[in-house]
């Protein structure tokens, strides 16, 4: 797996990085081999951003397709060239498991914001996934939205490795941070009863504070809808956007869960449209 990934990262760098960059990086990799904890490793990891300053272009379609062939669920659509270079650099270091994990701890401990984003995006590419689960959970505790999304978005890591409790916290926090859940790989696949209760409580808190309920919540509550939800749904309609009302109408229709008093407050349903179609059309939810 690592040789394929390195090849993908390298070919991206070859076609996009400025002249002399790869030679500089290879030279630093060679110097890093003697001691993985040396100052050259830390400075190189930082200096990559300086060397590639201004190269902010996003990944091409071709790279994204190749990435998904390497690792199902991995999509480097938000990655910068700096992320590719940092990934290539870390995967090129030859050191023991213990040294590598110690090095990662130190890189995380002194990371600036963009370095944190790079490191969290890289989790799925790095070896020793089992040892990185705590790190992913730590990243999800951040208050810095781009760091949260670096863990949660476009990576199968949360789906594959988070415990149910951590997964639920990630989804709940997404709503809390008003961050779309669509880019979370398989966001719907680990839906569970406990999460539905957490989300229902969250809806009630939002309504108590006279704040709108994000309509994507209903996509997760869908499987657990119950007559006890009538009250929450009715109250949420007061502040609901037209988009949310349409979505709820579709959802309630599809679930055949449609008391008349609710129906009267919702727009008419176009039966040709499914919930999934609506989500695809109306948000970055997929």
């Amino acid at each position, binding site marked *: 797996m690592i040789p394929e990934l390195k090849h993908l990262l390298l070919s991206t760098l070859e076609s996009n990085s400025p002249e002399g960059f790869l030679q500089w990086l290879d030279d630093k990799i060679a110097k890093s081999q003697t001691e993985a904890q040396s100052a050259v490793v*830390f400075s190189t990891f930082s200096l990559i951003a300086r060397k590639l300053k201004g190269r902010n272009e996003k990944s091409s379609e071709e790279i994204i397709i190749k990435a998904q062939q390497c690792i199902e669920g991995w999509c480097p659509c938000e990655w910068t060239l700096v992320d590719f270079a940092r990934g290539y650099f870390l995967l090129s270091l030859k050191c023991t498991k213990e040294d590598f994990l110690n090095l990662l701890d130190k890189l995380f401990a002194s990371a*600036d914001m963009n370095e944190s984003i790079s490191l969290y995006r890289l989790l799925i590419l790095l070896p020793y996934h089992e040892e990185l689960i705590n790190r992913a959970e730590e990243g999800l505790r951040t208050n810095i939205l781009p760091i949260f999304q670096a863990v949660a978005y476009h990576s199968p890591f949360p789906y594959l490795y988070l415990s149910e409790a951590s997964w639920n916290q990630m989804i709940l926090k997404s709503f809390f941070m008003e961050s779309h859940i669509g880019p979370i790989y398989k966001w719907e696949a680990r839906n569970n009863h406990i999460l539905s209760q957490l989300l229902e409580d969250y809806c009630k808190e939002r309504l108590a504070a006279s704040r709108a309920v994000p309509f994507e919540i209903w996509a997760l509550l869908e499987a657990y809808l119950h007559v006890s939800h009538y009250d929450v749904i009715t109250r949420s309609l007061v502040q609901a956007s037209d988009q949310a009302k349409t979505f709820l109408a579709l959802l309630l229709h599809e679930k055949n869960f449609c008391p008349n008093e609710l129906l009267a407050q919702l727009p008419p349903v176009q039966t040709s449209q499914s919930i999934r179609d609506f989500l695809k059309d109306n948000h970055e939810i997929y």
Partner: protein
Amino acid sequence: MKYIDSHVHMSSRTTDDYEAMASEGVVAVVEPAFWLGQPRTNIGSFLDYFSSLVGWERFRASQFGIQHYCAIGLDSKESNNEKLADEVMELIPRFACKEGVVAIGEIGFDDMSQSEEKYYIQQLLLAKEYELPVIVHTPHRNKKQGTIRSMDICADYGLDPKMVIIDHNNEETVKEVLDRGYWTGFTLYPKTKMGNERMVAIVEEYGSERIIINSSADWGVSDPLAVPKTASLMKKRGISEKQIHETCYQNALDIYLKSGQISENDWNKANKRDQSQLFSGNSVLRGQEPIIQ
């Protein structure tokens, strides 16, 4: 008018300060590493402090439309704890190359002790190696001697005066610092150091070349609006727009540009506030409606 506060310790300031600074035209701030009032006793405290300067504080500033840069260094007071100072010196290279680190600083003398001199010199050499500007803190006591000694040491170790800001000047030090070719910083405190009126008199006498005005606002009595307020007073006193622009914006930009880590594009393009990067619950906004410009 746009302003840069070239020396301000935002970690100690509130979101009200960020709001006020942004509304008065401050587009960028430089936060030098310094002591926190309470001396640190272990290296982990320095590690987390430096990390917050390049991480959380930068993000926090961006939420108020202000670009945040920093300087990394071991301050003079804590240079006197030699065991810890040696560990900090090992840590500095891990931070000096990061994005948005525009200088080594603030470093220099407090008690004028031997160990302060030792770590001042080591850090000057690091700045030379990394081709970074230096922010030199001059002592509150023994101001004139300390300022001259700080410049003498720079000269002894081959620092280019064009790469060094000698900060916290007053009427007694300004002439020699300017004559020797250094960038000459003035810190405007409400009660001590320089007052706004004195600052205006200095610009009237010495002009605006290489003179930089800053607030050094921190956890003590200080004014994060010192730069725009002084600019406004200078305008009232008939000082030219050009001189106001140079002392409150351009000179600071010119010296920090030498780091390659700051650019007017940073705020001209990206200065639109997007607080939707935040969330409503437990972050900086805490339930306020985000401002998206």
